[in-house]
């Protein structure tokens, strides 16, 4: 018998009575506020930032001001130019040269300040979201969902994307004597640009 069949047979012989453990209905609990204020508060707790426009600012001028030393600015959106387009990057490894990646997220979660990205937004170059030093995420207030329950119930992406990441602020670690460090191995900063 294969290990698969042995494991399944042992589980069948050993399991507790299924009738005694019914599946509860899908949970829909907690705060249903999907407002921008809640999202921004949550984002700030996890170390994310808002790229605030000044008078007359475009996304390009705001990025130039926020990242004055950036040489390679990669765009994954049609309405922003950058110095290189994501389509021009040929391998997952090549994305490592990126200083700033600009990408549009299909939705955010107010409870957590999380934004979602999949291969659909990253032109199948998933590594770009993690090898870049900084990420700027374009997000629309209309695409906020209240919490984790509403996100998993409402968003079709969880059922269609092969790769789907919820990023909640930049990468972080507290593995050396409990000191919180933002910018561990992935992005050093994550900024939201409201559209």
């Amino acid at each position, binding site marked *: 018998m294969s*290990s698969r069949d042995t*494991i*399944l047979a*042992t*589980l*069948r012989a*050993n*399991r*507790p*009575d*299924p009738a005694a*453990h*019914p*599946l*509860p209905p*899908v*949970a829909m*609990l*907690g705060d249903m506020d999907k407002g921008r204020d809640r999202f921004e508060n949550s984002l700030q*707790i*996890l170390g994310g930032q808002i790229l605030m426009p000044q008078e007359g600012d475009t996304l390009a001028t705001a990025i130039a001001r926020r990242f004055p030393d950036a040489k390679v600015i990669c765009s994954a959106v049609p309405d922003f130019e950058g110095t290189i387009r994501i389509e021009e990057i040929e391998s*997952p*490894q090549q994305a*490592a040269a990126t200083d700033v990646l600009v990408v549009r997220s299909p939705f955010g979660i107010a*409870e*957590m300040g999380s934004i979602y990205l999949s*291969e659909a937004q990253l032109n*199948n170059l998933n590594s770009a*979201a*993690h090898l870049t030093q900084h990420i700027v995420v374009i997000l629309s207030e209309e695409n906020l969902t209240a*919490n*984790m*329950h509403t996100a*998993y*119930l409402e968003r079709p992406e*969880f*059922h269609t*994307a*092969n*790769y*789907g*990441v*919820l*990023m*909640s*602020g*930049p*990468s*972080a*670690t*507290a*593995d*050396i*004597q*409990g000191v919180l*460090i933002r910018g*561990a*191995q*992935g*992005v050093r900063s994550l900024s939201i640009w409201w559209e």
Partner: protein
Amino acid sequence: MKVKPVNHAKAAEEFLEDAPHLTFHDERLWDMRQKRDQQMHLLPEWQDLRTRASEIKEHTLANLPEYLEQFEANAKKNGIHVHWAADGAEHNRIVGEILEKHGAKSLIKSKSMVTEECDMRAYLEPRGVTVTETDLGERIQQLDDQLPSHIVVPAVHKLVPDVAKIFAKNYHTDPNDNDPQSLAEAQRMAARPVILTADAGMTGGNFLVAETGTFVVCTNEGNADLSSTVPNLHIATLGIERLVPRMADLGVFVRLLSRSALGSPITQYTTHFRGPQKGGEMHIVLVDNGRSTRLGMEEFWTSLKCIRCGACMNTCPVYRRSGGLSYGAVYSGPIGAIIDPTFNERKYSTLPFASTMNGSCTNVCPVKINIHEQLYKWRRVLAEHHELPFVKREIMHMAGKLMGQPKLYRTAINGTEVALSTMPRFVLYNWLNPWGKHRELPHPVKQTFHSWYKQNRLKKDKAQ
């Protein structure tokens, strides 16, 4: 040769001797517990979430074979190769064969307790595969050749100078570097080239979703996403108990996991893998390694509900003051003490005694495992299986006799007053009396309650 039980008490004693490490360890873990409490108080639905999580897990475990088959069918449909491993040896062989087929010599991986269970690095390294842990804490432990001492924060027992020394030796950084920021940066700079040239990537996983064939990885450093998206070969290893039935069930667990673990609302990265990336290949190894047998243990099967948050470790006074390494096992703390004996009853026979029975572990568990009750039940099982150490067995035996006979008990208790105040220290504080280590025995009472009652009340009661 008969395997020797882990001497947890002795290892803990060594840990206790180092005051700076002990103090930091104790306070850091308690701080995590307090941050968890703050998050809990922000959510009025917290107890509902715990109940729901527990019910979903119990339902899933009772229907595990069907959900595993459903998961496998959906994952395969999405192009994932699904493997089954009965034990650690089979797991390692499967991973080794996948790597060999691809000629992969360099493997980058994120943290996975299952690969620790299987001792995978020790299997792959002699076969010419360089395995690099990319999680900072796990990497520190790999370079120091130690097991993770905590399931969420693997190097929590180390201080900055310890890390500086390890990095100086391996990364040629300043051995006196006292800045965690620059040490973390050293890890980032050292890891990047390895990540960019790796042949294969490996991750663990927190959840499997039967409905979609998805697996979910929750991390903070971004290293799991780098390990899975940069190389074109991704292998994921998960225990078979990690299932949830529906995508929507993840809402309950993601809301509980990081709040319980670190007191942060969510991990920085919550990644859903449903199939290989373009041009890539994806494998998943479903590991049993004793889990299917544990499901049949009437008193202990609910330990399979565990989502590995570590909250029980952070709150446990014994764990905080003995350190994870003192458990001598892959899983430490209260959850370790109830699952380790299922791997090796004799070797881990001492661990269920590493508890004060305060029940705090049970109270913080996000999936409501009755951890302290299982600790108690393990003690009974181990006594029945004659796995108690000599002193403990004899003391229990004597105590049993004493407490079973009221007259004998009273005589003995009256005697303790005389004994504690008159006996020389070496009689009271020696290896037969572990309570005399690191603490003074209580002051003897002038009079026992029983003799006081006899003197003051019994006569009056009779007179009425």
